[in-house]
């Protein structure tokens, strides 16, 4: 509920700014000005073409790693409890579990690294 409130308020602020621009700003257009700006030259071709798949790769990687990272939040919060075994002794359970998880993550990272999917080369 407070989040919704904040979103509503922020959207209102953004809309108010835009409304200011629409209402107050003067209008004086001409065909030259309405062209897309491409360093003063006539644009060649359309910017709506299919662009390189490398940009999508990053997005996919992000999804993979971010969702994996999301699994870590509950673990981090519950780490204290996970580290105390049923007999009150220190338990390695939580640590080892996450170590395995991170290791798998690292293997994935190494694979992606090796496949040169990160960066642009």
């Amino acid at each position, binding site marked *: 509920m407070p989040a919704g409130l904040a979103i509503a308020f922020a959207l209102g602020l953004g809309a108010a700014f835009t409304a200011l621009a629409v209402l107050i*700003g003067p209008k004086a257009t001409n065909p030259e000005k309405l062209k897309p700006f491409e360093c003063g030259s006539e644009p060649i071709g359309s910017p709506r073409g299919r662009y390189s798949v490398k940009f999508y790769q990053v997005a996919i990687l*992000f999804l993979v790693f971010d969702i994996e990272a999301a699994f870590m*939040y509950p673990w981090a919060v519950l780490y204290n409890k996970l580290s105390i075994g049923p007999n009150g002794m220190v338990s390695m359970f939580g640590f080892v579990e996450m170590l395995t998880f*991170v290791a798998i993550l690292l293997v994935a990272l190494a694979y992606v690294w090796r496949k040169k999917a990160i960066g*642009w080369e």
Partner: protein
Amino acid sequence: MSILYAILDWPGTKWLFLVFGLVMPLASLLTWAERRQSAMMQDRLGPNRANIGPIKLKGILHFIADAVKMIFKEDFIPASVHRGLFALAPILALVPVLVAFSIIPFGPTIYPHSLFDKLDPFALAASDPSMPLGAFADAIRMQMFQVDFGLVFYFAVLTLANYGGTIAGWASYNKWALLGGLRSSSQMMSYEVAMGLSLMGVFLIAGSLEPGWIVGHGASPQMSPANPLNWMWLWQPVALVLFLTASIAETKRAPFDIPEGEPEIIGYFVEYSGIRWGMFFLAEFIEIVFISAVIVTVFLGGYQFPFLDPDGFRVGGYMVQEAGTAISTGGLVFKLPHWAVSSLQFGAFGLKVVLLCWFQLMIRWTLPRFRADQLMNLGWKLLLPLSLANIMITAAIKLLFL
């Protein structure tokens, strides 16, 4: 009376206070500070002319002039853009940062009925918060949105800021803008991961994702949260550096300003002008303030003034548990009334945020810009493994010394 306090405690009031009383002025001032500060670093004077009659103030009024100029500029939309998305993009850039502020505890809890008393933390802990009357009733918590998933909310919301740049780039029907938008999204995504993971060490130590909890408890229950040694910067220095790096990257400012990269591609807002461009700009500066606020909250003790406990300055105290609350007691105490403590704590928060903003500007004007692939490499190949290592090492140490 309690209706007044109810209004004051209403999240909307807090948001309005936070945004219009704290964030917007600070962000606006930053636009001036950036120019003045960079000038000072570069042996220049910087803007110092904006004045209203005799009021000069070293050009601080510049931000007003900026705002007025942007509002009265032509609302110019090129012919070939996608109008709806074009108008939506700046709003999308601005909204998430403003929303994300709701999780930041920007001050201590205020007990309006005991404003002029010296606060007794034991009595506070023993008091029943549900009681309608009494010294601790009508408490106003200086945090709009207190939830257990606190910082995850921040990550989630800030990811939305991605859309602003990307949609602006696509909607502009301009190849440079498109490139800027693509760069913006891939950069934000790359650093999002490292940013989330870098804080994991803090969560491990604190055992909570709630920023208010982290501020109120510090790293160790054996020390007062007001003790600077109990703040996370000492316990998670690697995380601090990683988070600072990743979050500067999230603000898309130098050295990570490749989505704008003025001399390369002009940026995703090439086609924007006036207040629409100003919204991107404002979002960027608000983000600086926000990053500072998060770092202050998580790593630098938030609103905690060094050695200032709720009842006054204390040296050499110890912690006791009272009704499930850790309370700092004993030691050499210099008691202060509640209003003085609260003001000092507000001031401490503001000062820390301003100092971190200053530091971010300092970095921005010191370092050259990365290249897109180097930026990716830094994010994926350095920050991500380092943050994973930081998590596991923190976990291991915690296991050993538990």
